[in-house]
């Protein structure tokens, strides 16, 4: 197991697991809100096609959570 941080909270992930799956499994189902309606967004297609699950990883914005493998020490946020 490795550990990364989401908005300061420690999240565990299996080796090779995506950030999106680790967050979803930790009960965090939404990590951004939409621009107009402020609607919550998390995983939807989970295979890299829908772009709902975008988040910021180590300062790099607009990463697909479902396609980004979690690494120890990653700082993750909306």
């Amino acid at each position, binding site marked *: 197991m490795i550990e990364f941080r989401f908005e300061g909270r420690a999240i565990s992930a*299996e080796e*090779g*697991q*995506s950030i999106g*799956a*680790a967050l*979803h*499994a930790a009960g965090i*189902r*939404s990590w951004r809100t*939409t*621009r*107009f*309606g402020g*609607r*919550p*967004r*998390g*995983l*939807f*297609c*989970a*295979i*890299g*096609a*829908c*772009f*709902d699950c*975008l988040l910021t990883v180590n300062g790099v914005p*607009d990463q697909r959570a*479902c*396609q980004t*493998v979690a690494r120890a020490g990653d700082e993750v946020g909306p």
Partner: protein
Amino acid sequence: MSYDLAVVGAGPAGLTAARVAAKRGLRVALIDGYARTGGQFLRGAAQPRLTGVEVKLGQRVWAVEKSPGGFQVHASATTTAATLLIATGAHDTVLPFPGWDLPGVLTAGGAQALVKGERIRPGAEMVVAGTGPFLLPVAVTLLEAGVRVKEVLEANRPSPLMAAALARNPSKAAEALAYVRRLAAARVPYRTGHAVVAAHGKDSVEGVTVARLTPEWRPYAWRTVDCDTVAVGYGFTPQVDLALQLGCELSGDHVVADDRQRTSVEGVLAAGEVTGVAGAPSAVVEGALAVHSLVGEPPPRLLAEKARLRRFARALERSYPVRDGWRDWLTPDTVVCRCEEVTLRAIDEARDLGAHDPRTLKLLARPGMGWCQGRMCGHAVARLTGHEPAPQKRPFAQPITLADLTLHDREDNA
């Protein structure tokens, strides 16, 4: 270096092609956007040994172009090859319904990927809904992951065509029967002529509305089911972006390929779901056939197998269409385009202003203009304007950074 063959997509078709090509002595590169091989179907399977194959993972291909002597495949690095095999698979086709953008609504393929590839339980209590035989293995996968699957809802009715196709394909019939038995043993109801027509919850799914459907999918007789997660899938949409960039001929939603997987563009092959959704066994056969179009003759056994699997796939496609009544599931406030948050009301208003085709509608109301480039709403938006869903040309198949583009130019000019 330049390769004899560049394979884009490391699912069942691409993996098979790469392995067979290497065995035949071809210099082959296998490129995939994800960190592991396997594609969607083999997610989580042990990583195969690919002796003699240059495997390039984490390389999201955003464009392919013809170059002197072959093709250039552009990802974060550029790969050059004499022949290109497009094996980019498919993603779930989804339909909008009220609440479908709530967290906890997943695609069926996504729910399965989370179990098989990510080894997580997507939810505690789930409903699986949509159309097509894929719902069965998804429900069984979820059961085996410890999910309490409350219902499996198939929008279509049992079809005589499907029954006949199963009778001709005993192995497929046995597979389907095994899934049905597994669901029955766990007391999971499998209901045909039913659908999830709304999802409810504040920040995440807390329940769904299930309706009985007329044969044309108009809802009647509603009830609610408590659940925290929903998996929905209405078939699959082939990912034909790269083939479109090169001008390959399409038929409907898929790339036209001959019996050896050759497309209409010289030097471009296509195999698996991009040539029409037919499942992993068919993709494996086609991956092998693609290599035979480069070296030697295709074995008659493979050609016959492909024909048989394709016939079965056609019967499935005709048995599990998306029928028009789904429009009655929507309310004016239902979000149709998730990226740009375009509601049915906004689409109707644009139609009243004269937007009668998907392109005009997109320009006026913006559905399909966002990050996913219409991959999620394209089917619905086309149908809402009375058109057959058709692949959209995407000059960039994947988003890339300006930095990548600059580096890429430097590399080319070096």
